[in-house]
């Protein structure tokens, strides 16, 4: 088994905010089961803030801990603030990730971004920070080869 930080273990053993939101304002899905990781993020937005964030994750210990950490980091934040969360910030909050698992932290931030984009498109609004950044989705550091 990989050597995970205590923080990763805590979030893996007791992940926060797991679940789905039936009437979600935005949904973002990323990854694919072939590679071993898949995340779906659900957001509820009120007054431009992430009132609730939930997710479901198929993947390794790191993927689950990342989902939990991302949900903690952005819950209650404004959409603009939430969009500033980067994979390396997530990894740092988790007290580091094994090198070959770093791609998992990309997935978390990307799944959340997708959920916010989904919300923006549905509501026809423009959120600073959402469009001015290229989505690296297809060319992330995912080590998966199929």
């Amino acid at each position, binding site marked *: *088994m*990989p050597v995970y930080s205590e923080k990763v273990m805590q979030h*893996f*053993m007791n*992940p926060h905010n*797991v679940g*789905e939101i039936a009437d979600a304002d935005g949904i973002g*899905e990323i990854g694919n*089961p*072939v*590679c*071993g*990781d*898949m*995340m*779906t993020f659900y957001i509820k937005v009120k007054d431009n803030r992430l009132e609730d964030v939930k997710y*479901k*994750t*198929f*993947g*390794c*210990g790191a*993927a*689950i801990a990342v989902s939990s950490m991302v949900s903690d980091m952005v819950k209650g934040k404004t959409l603009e603030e939430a969009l500033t969360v980067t994979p390396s910030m997530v990894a740092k909050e988790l007290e580091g990730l094994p090198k*070959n698992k770093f791609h998992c932290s990309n997935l978390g931030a990307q799944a959340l971004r997708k959920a916010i984009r989904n919300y923006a498109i549905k509501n026809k609004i423009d959120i600073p920070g959402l469009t001015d950044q290229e989505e690296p989705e297809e060319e992330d550091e995912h*080590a*998966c*080869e*199929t």
Partner: protein
Amino acid sequence: MDNVAAAPLLPEVREAMMPFLKETFGNPQSLHSWGDGARDALEKAREQVASLIGGVAEEVFFTCSGTESNNMAVKGIARARADKGKHIIISAIEHFSVMNSARTLEKEGFEVTMVPVNSYGIVDPDEIVRNIRKDTVLVSIMHANGEVGTIEPIVEIAKKLPKDGPAFHTDAVASTGNIPINVKELGIHALSLAGNQFYGPRGSAALWVKRGVRILPLMDGGIQEGGRRPGTEDVPAIVGLGKAAEIAKAEIPAKSSRFIRLRDLLIEGVLNKIEHSMLTGHPTQRLPNYASFCLRFIEGEGMLMLLDSHGIAGASGSACTSRALKASHVLLAMGISHEVSQGSMLFTLGLDNTEDDVAYVLEKLPQVVDRLRQMSPLYSKFIKEQKG
């Protein structure tokens, strides 16, 4: 229940080794009485190993790992026969030590045919025969697979190979010491085995090569092991291997019937208690100590971590658990999808495991699986699709 990864030395094995770590430290090649003691011990171990597999002592060469034995067999035999031809046949589920040895041979101008397996992981002997060519010099098919425990039809393959045709090697690392093996009955020319698979020390292994079969050494050196495997012998490890072989031979019948009972309890329990689970490998044509599964909608590493928190050790062939993040080539070769192979779970029984241990796994594993499924988007999708 991850006994094939590491198991404790048997106390008897440790006891047998101790004198050679303490007072009897001689070099078997030395021509004095210290050397004599070591040499006698070495030859006794050779007989013990030969006896476990029904071979002759002179045909046993000590190595340092199953990997080394496989390298030595595949490369050593193919290279020794390169003047006859440069084609070899292996199966799609061989251990990396065979796979990658074949790849190295490819770079040296050999052609490699990889025969497929069926959904149980079994090689079709006729498929091998169909692929035999005039220039085929080696066939290497494992005796039993180390990930799913399937036992291959080695006898049938050997019977169908042309006389004076290719040499036939089998990687019996997973099976030796766990099921009865007789090299004459198998009809093979070379067999790899490793002591750590039957309670011998790590770093102790052997390659059996039938008399008359030519093999080139991997390393150049002196006269040890008939020049086929030079290098000063690790006498304590070899003595431990011999002792472990002697014990294994005596205990295989009792051990395997005990393992089979526990294994089948575990298999039946998992398949009954966990929905969307499947056994991997053949239901009966499998090693007594192997219970392997794919549990859908979840991923192996999370399973191992949660089981570990309950004090249960297992193994998985999921992509996430491998350092290379690649799904098990064995499961893929058996036609299991990438997605399903992520939920691979392997338990290997050991001498210390009891019926209580099996009951404990059957109590905890369903909880672990349920917990991971509750957070799996694949599972919720599946449930929604089922409903409607």
